[in-house]
């Protein structure tokens, strides 16, 4: 087993453990911390594939901004452990096989078109970051400008939602 494959399996295993822990934990802060583990592992996988820019953005935006926002809200609202309501027995016995079936069908659907790249591995894209920036400001410049508008609307929406009503 090559070193790269070993690193992949370690990171993938950590990511899956983190995702399972997200489901398992009852307190939202524990779920949030395990989600951070998943995100850092995914950033490592992006680095392993040679997508450095996406890895950096993943750490900065997901690990740095979005998760801090989540933890901030959990602390602000003083969220406690979630109250479990009674599951019906059917949910327990049908839910897990259904989840497995969903995962398997997604995996089959995604892997099948990739059969053409059955033995494909990742190729090193020369000057990937430069290509991304060129593409972002030439081909995709209108969607890019639209995202700035989207963020503006999101800021205003969050402000309007969170402000206290004036009496």
């Amino acid at each position, binding site marked *: 087993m090559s070193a*790269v*494959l070993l690193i*992949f399996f370690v990171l993938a295993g950590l*990511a*899956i453990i983190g*995702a*399972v822990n*997200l*489901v398992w934990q009852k307190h*939202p802060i524990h*779920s*949030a911390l395990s989600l951070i583990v*998943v995100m850092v592992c*995914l950033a490592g*996988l*992006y680095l392993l*594939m040679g*997508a450095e820019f*996406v890895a950096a*953005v*993943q750490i900065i*935006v997901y690990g740095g901004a979005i998760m801090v*926002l*989540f933890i901030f*809200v*959990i602390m602000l*609202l003083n*969220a406690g452990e*979630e*109250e*479990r*309501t009674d599951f019906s027995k059917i949910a327990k016995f049908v*839910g897990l096989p259904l*989840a*497995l079936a*969903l*995962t398997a069908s*997604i*995996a089959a659907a*995604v*892997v099948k078109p*990739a059969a053409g*790249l059955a*033995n*494909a*591995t*990742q*190729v090193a*894209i020369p000057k990937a970051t430069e290509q*991304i920036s060129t*593409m972002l400001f030439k081909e*995709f410049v209108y*969607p890019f400008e639209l*995202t700035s508008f*989207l963020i503006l609307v*999101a800021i205003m*929406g*969050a402000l309007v*939602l*969170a402000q206290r009503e004036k009496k």
Partner: protein
Amino acid sequence: MVPTQYYLILSAILFGLGAVAFVFKRNIITIFMSIELMLNAVNLAFVAFSQSFGKVHGQVFVLFVIVVAAAEAAVGLGIIILIQRNRQSLNVEKVNLLKL
């Protein structure tokens, strides 16, 4: 190097776990986090395809997904604060105004 299919299978597993968390969890913040997990799984598939075809289009798309996820998190957490203020609870079962 790692075969691309491994990445795709990992992506499917993470997406499935996110869907499970979305359905099973009762805390609205955790439900939001499971949406983020599903978006991350999709991003992984995007980058894996991008790297195996040798084109950066997928990575540009990942940037757009991340931007939309950030905007969604900002608005969604505002909504969560409002729900907590109005219902004094984060349990989604308490948000039942439209239920029969």
